[in-house]
């Protein structure tokens, strides 16, 4: 009994950390974007997230440089885009504006928030959204504990139901009643805790939360648990086999798991993969319930059954647990692939690294299970004590594994984090002077065309010691548009060889030569750096018609669309047509000819000759062979708005 109690305690800890998949409504893109410089104040701020936000619990606020709120009303959903929220902005003049947002994910109730700046007629300073902010805040302890308790309850109920009804039918009479009620109470407490944690995170009372989609999701999880308790209570007062009540409670627990999964990230998968992901995640839950919940139920039963019954139960459990472990491993891999997304994310994100550690510990757990299955159980009942010890160790190891999983629960999946952090990640370039005396590292945040913060670190080439310079400046020259001339930005010393400044010198997309001048008391050096600003995330609508070239409608921001097509859209000579359309649907006049650059993806692009065909219509001439091509369009509207777009086509 002592071993069983220890195992039970371990299971409590273990199951509390159960089950992966968590995430946040992280900022995917914004209009106006971080660091954008507009010539006219926008009438709306629209933020698009990686997950569906709950509008009733989310806020977006825009304030001017004096702290005066210029946004009006609450955040509203955007028609046709469930991932976006917008807020109207009252007419405002030139200046720097700060957009701050706080969203509650409709998927799991996680709260995220952040802020960025944009400028109207001026360059916003410190426009960058830090990658840490982009990844979202960590979840609260209350949230983690509540999920832990919920998972413990439903997994315990599921495992008890299968072991006490199928693996050891005799246990349906011998098993302690308090044990089943405990799991029911845990599951219900967990649901309630999740609700209160979500309400606290969102800053609302539980009543308001229950009136939202998150409340409905909570009720769908709580109802099966309540139903399980009712069934157990009713059948307990009636004569007849107790196993039917246990089976019904197990089914209810599985239903609660399904409701939880459907309201989680697997359920948020877009498209036809949604039911597949839900099924995979549900099987993962069920597998863990049958394996770990079942093991705890078996150990609790051990002392209450006759020897032959206990041996038979252990053998049947072992077979079932083997199947469950395979199911947990297979579904875990599938869900990890879906949540992590890439080898790079597996290695470079906290989420990915925790997944790897968890996988390594799972191997230890599987080894302990193999010891039980192939060495201990065949020698029962003589090795009953060994079974309890190895089983306890198995639950203890599972506790560590599932605690790690609990941490994973609080982190945004790597795929989402990567997407949001990549958008906020600065552009970094390094180089040295010809004499190899100075090494510089230039960080450009956010790294899009427009206003940026430039942080340069200069160190001695050989020793790596910071360089104390009298003056550090950057000279910018567009490779595709040399007619723009050279602009210079002086950097301020921030100590320890670091020099910073804010500027909008990277005014266009394409490639730039940025020359860092590091001037010291007796000498100075130039370091030429090749810089390619990032492209803002863009939406492309493709329109295909028989016999016509494919038309690509590219959203370049501010309601402006670039309509682009290739004529004849076949390998060989092509005219690359580009027409800018204003928000009112008219051709947008572009005073200076745009730049069109083409190249194979991943290789340097070359500018092609461009002709003007209309006020906002340009044609580039290019010889394009078969295969994939990348086309970049760079231009500037009359009001200074950057009109950059990128198109990938295959001929």
């Amino acid at each position, binding site marked *: 009994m002592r071993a069983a109690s220890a195992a039970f305690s371990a299971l409590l800890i273990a199951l509390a950390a159960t089950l992966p998949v968590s995430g946040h409504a992280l900022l995917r893109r914004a209009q106006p974007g971080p660091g954008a410089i507009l010539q006219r104040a926008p009438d709306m701020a629209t933020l698009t997230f990686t997950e569906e936000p709950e509008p009733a619990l989310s806020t977006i606020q825009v304030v001017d440089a004096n702290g005066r709120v210029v946004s009006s009303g609450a955040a509203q959903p955007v028609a046709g885009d469930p991932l976006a929220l917008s807020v109207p902005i009252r007419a405002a003049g030139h200046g720097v504006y700060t957009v701050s947002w706080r969203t509650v994910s409709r998927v799991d109730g996680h709260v995220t928030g952040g802020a960025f700046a944009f400028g109207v007629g001026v360059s916003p300073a410190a426009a960058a959204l830090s990658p840490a902010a982009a990844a979202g805040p960590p979840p609260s302890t209350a949230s983690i504990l509540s999920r832990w308790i919920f998972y413990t309850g439903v997994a315990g109920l599921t495992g008890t139901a299968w072991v006490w009804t199928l693996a050891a039918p005799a246990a349906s009479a011998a098993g302690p009643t308090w044990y089943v009620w405990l799991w029911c109470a845990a599951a219900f407490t967990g649901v309630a805790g999740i609700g209160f944690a979500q309400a606290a995170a969102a800053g609302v009372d539980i009543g308001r939360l229950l009136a939202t989609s998150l409340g409905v999701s909570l009720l769908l999880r709580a109802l099966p648990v309540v139903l399980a308790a009712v069934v157990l209570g009713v059948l307990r007062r009636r004569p007849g086999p107790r196993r039917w009540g246990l089976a019904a409670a197990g089914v209810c627990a599985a239903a609660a798991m399904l409701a939880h999964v459907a309201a989680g990230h697997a359920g948020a998968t877009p498209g036809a993969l949604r039911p597949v992901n839900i099924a995979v995640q549900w099987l993962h839950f069920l597998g863990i319930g049958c394996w770990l919940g079942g093991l705890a139920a078996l150990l609790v039963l051990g002392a209450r059954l006759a020897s032959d019954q206990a041996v038979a139960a252990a053998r049947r459990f072992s077979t079932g647990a083997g199947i469950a472990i395979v199911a947990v491993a297979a579904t875990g891999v599938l869900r990890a692939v879906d949540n992590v997304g890439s080898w790079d994310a597996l290695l470079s994100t906290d989420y990915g690294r925790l997944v790897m550690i968890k996988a390594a510990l799972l191997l230890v757990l599987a080894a302990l299970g193999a010891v039980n299955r192939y060495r201990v159980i065949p020698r029962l009942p003589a090795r009953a004590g060994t079974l309890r010890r190895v089983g306890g160790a198995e639950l203890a190891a599972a506790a560590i594994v599932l605690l790690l999983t609990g941490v994973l629960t609080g982190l945004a999946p790597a795929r989402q984090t990567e997407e949001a952090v990549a958008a906020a990640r600065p552009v970094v370039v390094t180089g040295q*002077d010809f*004499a*190899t*005396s100075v090494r510089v590292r230039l960080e450009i945040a956010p790294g899009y065309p427009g206003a940026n913060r430039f942080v340069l670190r200069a160190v001695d*080439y*050989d020793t790596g010691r910071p360089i104390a310079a009298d003056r550090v400046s950057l000279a910018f020259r567009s490779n595709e548009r040399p007619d723009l001339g050279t602009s210079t930005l002086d950097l301020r010393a921030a100590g320890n060889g670091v020099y910073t400044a804010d500027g909008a010198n990277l005014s266009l997309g394409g490639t730039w030569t940025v020359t860092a001048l590091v001037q*010291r*008391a*007796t000498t100075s050096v130039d370091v*030429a750096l090749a810089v390619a600003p990032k492209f803002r995330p863009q939406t492309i609508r493709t329109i295909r018609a028989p016999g016509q070239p494919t038309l690509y409608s590219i959203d370049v921001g501010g309601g402006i669309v670039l309509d682009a097509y290739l004529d004849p859209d076949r390998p060989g000579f092509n005219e690359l047509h580009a027409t800018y359309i204003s928000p009112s649907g008219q051709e947008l006049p572009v005073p200076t000819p745009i730049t069109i650059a083409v190249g194979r993806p991943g290789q340097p692009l070359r500018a092609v000759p461009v002709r003007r065909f209309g006020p906002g219509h340009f044609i580039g001439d290019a010889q394009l062979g078969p295969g994939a091509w990348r086309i970049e369009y760079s231009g500037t509207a009359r009001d200074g708005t950057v009109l950059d777009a990128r198109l990938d086509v295959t001929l």
Partner: protein
Amino acid sequence: MSPTVARCFAAFVAIGGIASFAPGAWAHEHRTVATVQMTVGWGDEPTYTGFKNSVQLILQDKSGKPITDLVDTLKVEVRFGSQSIGPLDLERAFAKTFGRPGDYRAQIVPTRPGTYSFHFIGTVDNQKIDQTFTSSSTTFDNVQDAAAIEFPVKDPSTADLGGRLDRIGPRVDEARAAAGRASTLGAIGLVAGVVGIAVGLGAMRRRRPG
């Protein structure tokens, strides 16, 4: 010479004269000191490293009339970082038949890109002058690396090559020292190996019966 031809010739000379005083890219700083107007910049702009250039000072009086009688009462010191050269003499860059009256130059070859300061000290028309002019994006040009306009091949400057050679010397010394340390360790290892083999062979012989 007919009057028409004479007028055309006069117009041609006037236009040519104006054109000769209009530099291509002329970024100079203008300052009035008491009764003296000083216009300061590089003699040849944009200014690139490694090419002969000059400090240009155009002197005018308050009414805008060129000051052409400056003797050696005004000098210029050129500063870069903590270094300086001078005081340098300012020489006339004009005569009766050429140049712009009031244009004085001090020849210099800037060898490093960056910010330069010109410190003028002395007297002009009995006016005491102590003025410093510093290059910047709003005054006159900073000096740029000549590689920016080199074509078709960007050759390193003498200063760059010198800097690289300066760096290579200590690196070669360090590499030699490392090679020496490695040789010593290798020799120690070799000796240890030979001793080990000898000890092993001796041990085997002792174990062999008889």
